[in-house]
């Protein structure tokens, strides 16, 4: 359109300056830049990275240090059970059975059948009397006299100093004739012990305690004492052995609901609420400190006595739990599917966590976003810091020259020769030792990296200024008396800027690489903050590297792409600023 207008209004000569569209230098650089495909690719990559890091963190539904949990069911050992083979002893209040007596009892108990067995212990003679299956009374025996049988005549003689009443004598006669060795008179039990030939010793037994293999468990703690009391045990077990439905102990009536195998549930008379359970199975929890519910113990005992290897149990919350029983030696181990609340470590990628979760149970994608912020921020701040120091020192050195230049450049040489990684390792160790908080650590890290990295900028600036200083336009500024500050900032700096911009862009990439390397070595950014380098650090654990690629590969790809983007853009800028190479 404009060309048409020009053509219509006036004729232009072939060499008329207006025929040429004049672009400003900046515009020319821009045009050259956008013609470079790689530079445009770099711009697109970088735009994506900035959006990903700075907007991503805002959009992401999670915080960077949010830990995720999961519930998992595992077949865990829950309880162990054992069929009781140890006798438990119960004595009336005040009485006690000595260890010797108990040991002797255990020794002889297998011989006790219809007949009583006697043993000597603690200077007394003891008698074991069978009350039922695995249920015995232990008592001290006292000799009263002897019974001799001569054909049909039975003679009962009292020991000197003892008296035997006629009723006892009659009872003893009947017992001997009936072939029985025990009898009771008025609640007092008497025994006959076989002696020589056809003679018996007559004695009484005063019961000192009972022994049983059964295990009583009270529902609710308040009945514990009652249930393990002598009177209650004796009455309950006798009733159980006799198959009776009720019994009485200490003046109270109880109801008994018995199964086969001597397991039973005891109720108070007139109540439907179970009071205690009876069984020969002892159930104890696997974890110390845990308690098992009585219902549960009863369920386990029932399953074991019925030889079931699995059972279901309705717990207090009304949920049905599945339990399985396995034998281990003489013990039964009860396994159950337990719901446990765990940190969701190394979760595989899913809709909720597109890149899974890391070893702290944090969302990897979210951490990548926040990590990108830190990586990019560190890159920019360090770059600015390096340039600030470098421009000042390089500028002074180049502009003034002479001994200032020599001194400053030797200083730069010295600084340059300090090995980088050893310094950073030591700095990291010092920060570790002082337990610098994560945020402060970032700032310190940026400061150290900036201080360690400015020498390159200083050299470039000095070199440029040295060569520019000698050029004609600088001589002209001096001749026309331009102020020093104006000469520096108006004439020198703009000429150095293009090269600095290129250097800074390329430098950004290498700063990000360095920060990532430091973080990877554990010297840089620390938990709970993240940077891309520290995320890849997880891969130094072989287990993570081998099994969870989704934790560390994306972070590495992001680093490579970002650095590549900066390098493309820097390269493009250099070509655009310096078209000499573009021939």
């Amino acid at each position: 359109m404009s060309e048409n207008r020009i053509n219509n209004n006036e004729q232009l000569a072939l060499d008329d300056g207006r025929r040429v569209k004049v672009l400003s230098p900046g515009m020319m650089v821009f045009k050259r830049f956008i013609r470079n495909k790689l530079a445009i690719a770099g711009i697109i990559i970088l735009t994506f990275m900035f959006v990903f890091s700075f907007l991503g963190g805002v959009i992401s539904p999670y915080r960077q240090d949010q830990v995720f949990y999961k519930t998992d069911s595992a077949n865990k050992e829950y309880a162990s059970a054992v069929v009781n083979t140890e006798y438990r002893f119960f004595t009336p209040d005040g009485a006690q059975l000595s260890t010797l007596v108990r040991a002797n009892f255990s020794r002889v108990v297998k011989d006790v059948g219809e007949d009583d067995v006697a043993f000597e212990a603690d200077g007394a003679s003891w008698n074991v009397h069978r009350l039922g299956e695995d249920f015995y009374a232990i008592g001290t025996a006292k000799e009263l006299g002897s019974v001799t049988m001569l054909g049909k005549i039975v003679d009962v003689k009292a020991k000197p100093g003892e008296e035997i009443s006629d009723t006892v004598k009659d009872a003893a006669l009947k017992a001997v004739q009936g072939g029985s060795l025990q009898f009771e008179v008025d609640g007092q039990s008497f025994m006959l012990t076989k002696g020589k030939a056809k003679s018996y010793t007559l004695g009484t037994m005063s019961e000192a305690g009972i022994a049983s293999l059964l295990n009583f468990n009270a529902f609710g703690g308040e009945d514990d004492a009652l249930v393990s009391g002598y009177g209650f045990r004796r009455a309950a077990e006798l009733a159980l052995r006799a198959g009776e439905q009720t019994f009485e102990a200490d003046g109270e009536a109880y109801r008994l609901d018995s199964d086969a195998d001597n397991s039973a549930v005891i109720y108070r008379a007139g109540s439907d609420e179970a009071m205690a359970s009876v069984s020969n199975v002892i159930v104890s929890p696997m974890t110390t400190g845990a308690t098992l519910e009585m219902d549960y113990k009863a369920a386990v005992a029932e399953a074991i006595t019925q030889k079931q290897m699995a059972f279901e149990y309705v717990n207090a919350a009304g949920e049905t739990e599945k339990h399985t029983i396995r034998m281990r030696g003489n013990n039964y181990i009860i396994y159950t599917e337990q719901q446990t609340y765990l940190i969701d470590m190394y979760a595989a990628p899913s809709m909720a966590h597109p890149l899974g979760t890391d070893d702290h149970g944090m969302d990897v994608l979210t951490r990548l976003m926040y990590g990108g912020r830190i990586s990019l921020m560190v890159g920019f701040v360090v770059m600015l810091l390096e340039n600030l120091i470098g421009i000042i020192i390089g500028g002074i050195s180049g502009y003034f020259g002479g001994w200032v230049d020599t001194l400053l450049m030797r200083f730069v040489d010295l600084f340059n020769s300090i090995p980088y990684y050893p310094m950073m390792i030591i700095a990291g160790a010092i920060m570790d030792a002082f337990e610098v908080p994560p945020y402060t650590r970032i700032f310190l890290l940026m400061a150290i990296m900036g201080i360690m990295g400015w020498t390159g900028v200083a050299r470039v600036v000095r070199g440029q200024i040295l060569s520019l200083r000698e050029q004609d336009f600088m001589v002209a500024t001096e001749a026309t008396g331009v102020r020093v500050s104006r000469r520096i900032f108006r004439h020198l700096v703009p000429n150095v800027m293009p090269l600095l911009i290129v250097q800074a862009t390329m430098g950004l990439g290498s700063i990000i690489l360095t920060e990532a390397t430091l973080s990877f070595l554990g010297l840089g950014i620390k938990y709970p903050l993240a940077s891309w380098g520290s995320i890849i650090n997880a891969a130094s654990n072989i287990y993570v590297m081998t099994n969870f690629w989704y934790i560390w590969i994306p972070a590495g790809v992001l680093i490579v792409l970002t650095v590549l983007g900066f390098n493309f853009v820097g390269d493009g800028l250099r070509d655009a600023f310096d078209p000499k190479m573009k021939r």
Partner: protein
Amino acid sequence: MWKFIVRRTALALVIIFLGAFIIYGVMRCMPTSFVESLARQRAAASSTTGGKSYQQWLAELNEAYHMNDDVITGYFNWLGGVLKGDFGESWKYGIPVVEKFNQVIWYSVVLNIITLILEVVICIPLGIQAARHQYSGFDYGITVFAMLCISLPTFFLATVLKYIFAVRLNWFDLYGIVGRYHEQLSASGKIWDMVQHMVLPTLTLTMLNVGGLTRYTRTNMLEVLNADYIRTARAKGLSERVVINRHAFRNTLIPLVSYMSYLVPSLFSGSMITETLYQIPGIGYISYDAMVAGDLPFTMFYAVFGLLLTQVSLMLADIMYAVVDPRVRVN
């Protein structure tokens, strides 16, 4: 020329002196020093038998390791030893520093020489070809590839290579310079075993360095190809092969030789990150371990060695530049 060398050497000595002092000072500032951790270990070991306490051990060990001297005295004591050729005994490894250095340095040198040869063989042809066909698809491919190599973080590249070749394909071991059954192997088997363990580190280092040299070759070749004498050579009607090989390539060598003479001293400096990642017991990995443990004599030796290498390579680069290009006057 000689004047330059003398002046440069004097400057290098000053820089080494000051640089070593800075490293020494920083090492002494390290919060958990080697002596402290040793004292802690000894105290823990002797606590059951009623031995010395941590404080007693610390005082004794500080005395033994000359840690009671202030930094300046300590530095000059160390320097005095060094001037007599005594770098001391490594605290961590328990043998003289120089002996340990001799044990480990050759791993690094071999690794770096192989890498350098591979680099030259790969980069120079690639760079020249890319420059000859500027803006072709091949050129773009080379540029992107070189940029990609420059942009790769060492640790990520090493981890990816390990993941692919050691974990997935199971071709190589993850770590170390020798395999598990190294001692049972025959002499040639032992060498083959070590070669196998060197493959991944070499690949890593080569990939990391390929980008820089390729781009450098390409840039210089482009510059030469745009020079007037190349145009003249073409105008004379020389064949393209002669133009490239005789006229262009030889002139490209000037900056390349200077660049590579700069690399020669770095053959000895090892590559801390790569060696550490693959646990190759070269100078880089060994001194990383020494540094982390706070082993003062070894770290100082490594630092001075590094300073020396840097200075030598800078000087060498200057001199080589003058040697290959007579137009340059070093003064």
